[in-house]
């Protein structure tokens, strides 16, 4: 008899799990906390990276819909492509966001420029789900402005069909065996970060000499590089366009599913570890509702479902335990500790370093076009001569015409 009852219960359980994604209140969430704004018709504007939240496609949990259903707060969700775009919108004052999810170095800059509101942690009880080590970070020293959303490392994704040797160091990106088969990041910060780590320096170094040495390294790499790209790496590697490319661990997982030849390695010299964290900007109108949204994101099941969709690594301990075995032990998303030891996250650099890095980077990109500089004066002279000749010709023609009129 008991077995039948157990069978029945199991059936009901898996039935409920199968037929519709676990609806929020079944998660046994604290009803009273979440229904405070039930029918006050409040809406919050969430601004996050593109493709960076479980949106219910191919039967994953639609996080925003669940939140709206549970709390009655409507979510206006929009996406940005780079941290600077987010910074631009906020700085120009036109934007009206309640929750933003920028990367670590942007958070530290926003804190310095007072663009974020300190979080009231009574409203975010679920924050203790987060692993302690991810709460004290140097991009948010007091840990008062942000709650980590995801983290990940930058490593090397390579095509095993084209690369047969063991890949464990940045040096391989400079190996001329793969000429015209290596893709490289196109924004200066990441490119210099990788090179500095390869040379053993810190990727936040502001020492001009180190930066210039890194610049020389990058110049040497230029002939080997097929293209300087950012997110095109995703499609190019999947399409077998190149052999090696630096990329984010989280995306590597989805790419490997699509193209099994691909593999991912975290270089031993250390790499950039990055955090995306949820913060509340000063333009926020609904602070408490925003904090409720952050709390909802930290709930174990929600974080787990979310991280499964995104593919990056979760800072949320409770969600980590819910993940199934082979994700937890996958070295790509959760590399073992000795590799993590010399990872660093980006920090906002002072203005002059940025300027220096930017000019060095332009120099690198245009190394083989230097000869064009002398073309400038030639063009100007040619232009002036041509126009002078034309003016004279037209004057003469008009004068002759007028003469016998």
């Amino acid at each position, binding site marked *: 008899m008991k077995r039948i009852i157990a069978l029945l219960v199991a059936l009901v359980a898996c039935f409920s799990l199968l037929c519709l994604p676990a609806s929020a209140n079944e998660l046994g969430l604290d009803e009273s906390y979440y229904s405070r704004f039930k029918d006050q018709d409040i809406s919050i504007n969430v601004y996050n990276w*593109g493709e960076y939240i479980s949106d219910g496609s191919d039967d994953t949990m639609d996080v925003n819909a669940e939140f709206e259903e549970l709390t009655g707060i409507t979510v*206006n969700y929009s996406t940005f*492509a*780079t941290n600077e775009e987010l910074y631009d919108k906020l700085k*120009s*004052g036109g934007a009206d966001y309640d929750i933003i999810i920028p990367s670590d170095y942007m958070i530290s800059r926003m804190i310095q420029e007072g663009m974020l509101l300190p979080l009231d942690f009574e409203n975010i009880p679920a924050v203790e789900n987060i692993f302690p080590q991810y709460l004290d970070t140097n991009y948010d020293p007091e840990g008062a402005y942000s709650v980590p959303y995801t983290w990940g490392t930058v490593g090397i994704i390579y095509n095993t069909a084209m690369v047969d040797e063991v890949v464990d160091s940045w040096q391989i990106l400079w190996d001329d065996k793969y000429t015209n088969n290596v893709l490289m990041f196109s924004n200066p910060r990441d490119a210099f970060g990788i090179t500095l780590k390869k040379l053993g320096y810190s990727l936040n170094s502001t020492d001009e000499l180190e930066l210039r040495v890194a610049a020389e390294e990058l110049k040497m790499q230029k002939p080997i590089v097929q293209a300087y790209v950012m997110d095109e790496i*995703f499609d190019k590697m999947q399409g077998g366009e190149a052999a090696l490319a630096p990329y984010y661990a989280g995306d590597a997982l989805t790419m490997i599913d699509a193209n099994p030849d691909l593999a991912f390695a975290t270089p031993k010299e250390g790499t950039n570890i990055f955090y995306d964290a949820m913060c509340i900007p000063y333009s926020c109108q609904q602070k408490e509702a925003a904090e409720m949204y952050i709390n909802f994101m930290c709930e174990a099941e929600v974080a787990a479902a979310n991280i499964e969709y995104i593919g990056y690594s979760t800072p949320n301990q409770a969600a980590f335990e819910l993940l199934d075995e082979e994700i937890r032990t996958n070295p790509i998303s959760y590399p073992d500790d000795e590799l993590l030891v010399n990872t660093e996250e980006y920090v906002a650099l002072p203005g002059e370093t940025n300027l220096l890095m930017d000019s060095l980077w332009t120099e690198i990109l245009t190394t083989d076009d230097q000869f064009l500089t002398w073309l400038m004066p030639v063009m100007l002279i040619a232009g002036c001569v041509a126009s002078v000749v034309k003016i004279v010709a037209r004057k003469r023609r008009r004068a002759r015409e007028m003469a016998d009129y």
Partner: protein
Amino acid sequence: MKKSWLSRCYVGLVMFFLYAPILVLIVYSFNENKSRGVWTGFSFKWYQELFHNEIILQSLSNTLFIAVVSSLLATLLGTAAAIGIFSMGRKARSLVMNVTYFPIINPEIVTGVSLMLLFAMCGIDLGYLTLIIAHMTFCTPYVILNVMPKLRQMDQHTYEAALDLGCSPLQAFSKVIIPEIMPGILSGLMMSFTYSLDDFIISYFVSSSTSQTLPITIYSMTRRKVSPEINALSAIIFVVVLVILIIVNVYGARQEKQQQKRYASYL
């Protein structure tokens, strides 16, 4: 003429060059697999996905709304401007015309940036209003450039004839001048609608989170990876526009044939 074979195949070549990417786009909108590299089978999956992909549909409606509103307002403003400019003296007219060329000659990124700085300075919130203002700013010159030649070709005395036959200036205006320059107004409207629909650089700088237009969504997608729903959407847009143009074309041709029949004498 005998070399018409040569010219026809030249035109065919150029058309193939123009349409190859679009065909690739449409073909890939039926590709089952997400990545564009490999072809794994035919499916309408992306067309279904399209119809409940919230972001794309929302931005499509934004785009259409802004394109319609801004092109209509631009046409109104532009037509009035063209008539006003037309009756100006030579000096004033060439000055105003140079200012009119500015938004066209100016690189879009500069216009976008300058408008963003302006809105930030005056504290206007970015959103539908700023988008419409920006689109009107760069569409009005095209309306003026379409209406001006029509005004110039118009026989000046028709207006006086209308007055002579008892019309008030306003009646004369609406009965004589408007019908005469209507083709210019319509082509101006069409052009501003086209440019407004397709613009992304300027909209990118002046739009807010809730007023994302389709080109911006596509732009932020091309940075990550283009989801095939967009291919499906552009295939649909392509077919819809093609049908509209065919109808307009056939209607125009039939009208012309009627006119020809009426005075069909070959000199």
